[in-house]
């Protein structure tokens, strides 16, 4: 059997469509609404800024894409936080430009087991910001935002009073990283050069030389 990193069968067991609707009905009805789209194509256009090459979305995916999980304030916090984690530079854009905000929102609905951790963490962040600056995280200055991140982004040196913030940030950073690097922009940045038909002839000589190995030994 081939086990891929991160492919823990227990963690990825997902949920049924029915469970998902039930969960939403119980927990997040207030923030669930249709975005005014009627056809799957419109949903894709309007909701999802991902690049697509003809993959047929399932009915369930389309249903999830028509829903919102975050409140507007939460979504703005997610956006700013994601861009702080992966900003733009001369090689590629930022998390937002790679569709990370939409990705995270979709995953909250697709794998509801993540909802409490992320929503609760965003709340933790907001309270921390209110405590320090009497301002919500998304309204305070970047300097203030970074001061909070400096306390929760480095697990080995973070103070014990920040342990919940650290745990949230670890999970959130992983979501941002997946969303960014698995996007078309992220793959081009790395770069990932596969997913094409080819005749494998081994690694390039420059790489073999660097590693100090060869096919002749």
């Amino acid at each position, binding site marked *: *059997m*081939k*086990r891929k*990193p*991160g*492919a823990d*069968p227990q963690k*990825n*067991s*997902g*949920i049924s469509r029915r469970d998902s609707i039930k969960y939403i009905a119980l927990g997040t009805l207030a923030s669930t609404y249709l975005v005014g789209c009627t056809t799957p194509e419109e949903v894709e256009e309007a909701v999802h800024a*991902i*690049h697509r*090459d003809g*993959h047929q*979305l399932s009915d369930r*995916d389309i249903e999830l894409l028509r829903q919102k999980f975050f409140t507007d304030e939460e979504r703005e916090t997610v956006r700013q936080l994601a861009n*702080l*984690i*992966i*900003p733009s*530079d001369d090689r590629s854009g930022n998390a937002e430009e790679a569709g990370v905000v*939409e*990705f995270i929102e*979709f*995953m909250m609905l*697709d794998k509801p087991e993540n909802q409490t951790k992320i929503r609760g963490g965003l709340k933790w962040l907001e309270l921390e910001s209110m405590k320090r600056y009497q301002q919500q995280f998304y309204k305070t200055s970047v300097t203030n935002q970074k001061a909070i*991140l400096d306390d929760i*982004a*480095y*697990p*080995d*040196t*973070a103070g014990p009073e920040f342990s919940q913030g650290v745990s949230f940030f*670890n999970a959130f*950073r*992983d979501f941002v*990283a*997946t969303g960014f*690097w*698995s996007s*078309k922009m*992220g793959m081009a*940045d*790395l770069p*990932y*050069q*596969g*997913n*094409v*038909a*080819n005749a*494998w*002839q*081994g*690694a390039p000589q*420059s790489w073999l030389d660097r*590693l100090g*190995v060869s*096919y002749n030994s």
Partner: protein
Amino acid sequence: MQIKEQPNEYDVVIVGSGAGGGMAAKVLTEGGAKVALLEAGPFYNSEEGNMFKWNYESPRRGAGSRERPFGEFHANIGGWDIEGEPYSNASGSNFKWFRARMLGGRTNHWGRISLRFGPYDFKRKSMDGLGDDWPISYEDVAPYYDKVDKYVGIFGSSENMINEPNGHFMPPPKPRGYELLIQKAGRSVGIPVIPSRLSILTRPLGHNESPHRNPCHYCSQCGRGCATHSNFSSPSVLIPPAQATGNLEMILNSMAREVTTDGEGKATGVSYVNTISGQEYHIKSKIVVLAASACESARILLNSRSEQHPNGLANSSDVVGKYLMDSTGTDMMALIPDLIDGIPHNEDGVGGMHVYTPWWLEKEKRDFPRGYHIEFWGGRGMPGYGFMGGIQRHNKILGEIDSKPRLSGGGYGLKLKEDYRRLYGSIIGMSGRGEAIAFKDNKCEIDSEKVDKYGIPVLKFNYQWSTNEIMQVKHMHESFEQIIDAMGGKPLWEKPGKEENYGITDPGLIIHELGVTRMGNNPKSSAVNMFNQAHDAKNVFVVDGGPFVSQADKNPTWTILALAWRTSDYIIDQMKQKNI
């Protein structure tokens, strides 16, 4: 409820369309038998699979689901948890039962690791006193391994290792860069790292029977279903020739309930339910071949109670469901500094490892029986869901590389973004897969209380690892550590200790369930004879992993294929002689 009788009587009904069932369908139809093939799931052709899709085409970036735990683009429908098809565990047992529900069964899932059993693997009891010997030897199976190699296609290298027999190999793909590093490290610590043996075509097949199968185009996505049929799966390789004979009828979306028998105890056919309409059917046949997966076949037999077979069909010995085995397993990942800041290139290769470590300490003194092999993975694969998760655990090391110590991993911002780029492709993984001993007490039986959504009584598992398996897994970690140290690598987590049983996986997670309808010469201690024929009903056969007496450290598919071919030849012969 009306049970519809299918009008035609078949020579053979096969239950299950995976490696065993697919092979039986091919050989039996080619031998002239009229065959009905029952499959619990839908039709599948891997040309309709998800090859070459980008993970960003999906809003979940390829993440798994209940229906597809290995990722949404993965070919295989099924998993350890199927809606409406529960199973249970006795207290203290945590067996995980993987089922595939589609044409081809779990041949749509596996890693194409195609290892012959060696001469020792059939006679382990004679060597260490544990378990039982098979009633057959390597020499009995070798001609069929040869046939499977040639018909299906396999790459590898002839190493002349006695218990890792040579086969009819196509040339293996060159190792990837990191695999050469592993090979070099292995050499320095005396752990062999040789070309892997996978059923993927690196050359055109040497026969004309499968013109639809082309050599590999190295996209690394075997698991998504290969549109060019370059790897082995039952729907790509075995179902088409069976269909071409005109002797095959596929009955899809049909879940077998039980094997029916007559007053003499002989099988008369199979009753089943259509999983979509709910309609109940019975189909008549002269012969029944079970290939539903080891435990599913055991379940069908145990549920086939009659006056003649009060303990379930083929179970006068009371061994059906007993001697359940799954491979031992444990994994480790490491960051390899030499691979940091890599040179971009397409490192996809075939779908899986190009090198592996076969069991190499046969003659050494050690504190556990039997052996294991090591599978390797890593490289610059397509980023998807979970990409470089837990970066805080490993980007601290970049401080050492740069001689600018970092007090903690993690972080955010431009530096973090650069860290991901630098670390991409620098992490390798190792998976040990070993042989567990067959114990009578490791078993599945019919749960006395529960049924599934079709009303079929479900299985209850009871499986415990023994010290043998736990000590073997401890040794796996010691080997991983040797290789990682020799590479100058940094393990991503601590070696698991005694209190965690050294990190041994829950039984069932490696998806090599075997042994619950064991083969033997003595009808009192085995369910089937050396031709996989039930001792108690001459026209009932089992051709999945159930008849395995011991499991070796090898992935079982190649042996299932070889034994299913051998059994099918025997069935044709017996039909000709009018013995069944």
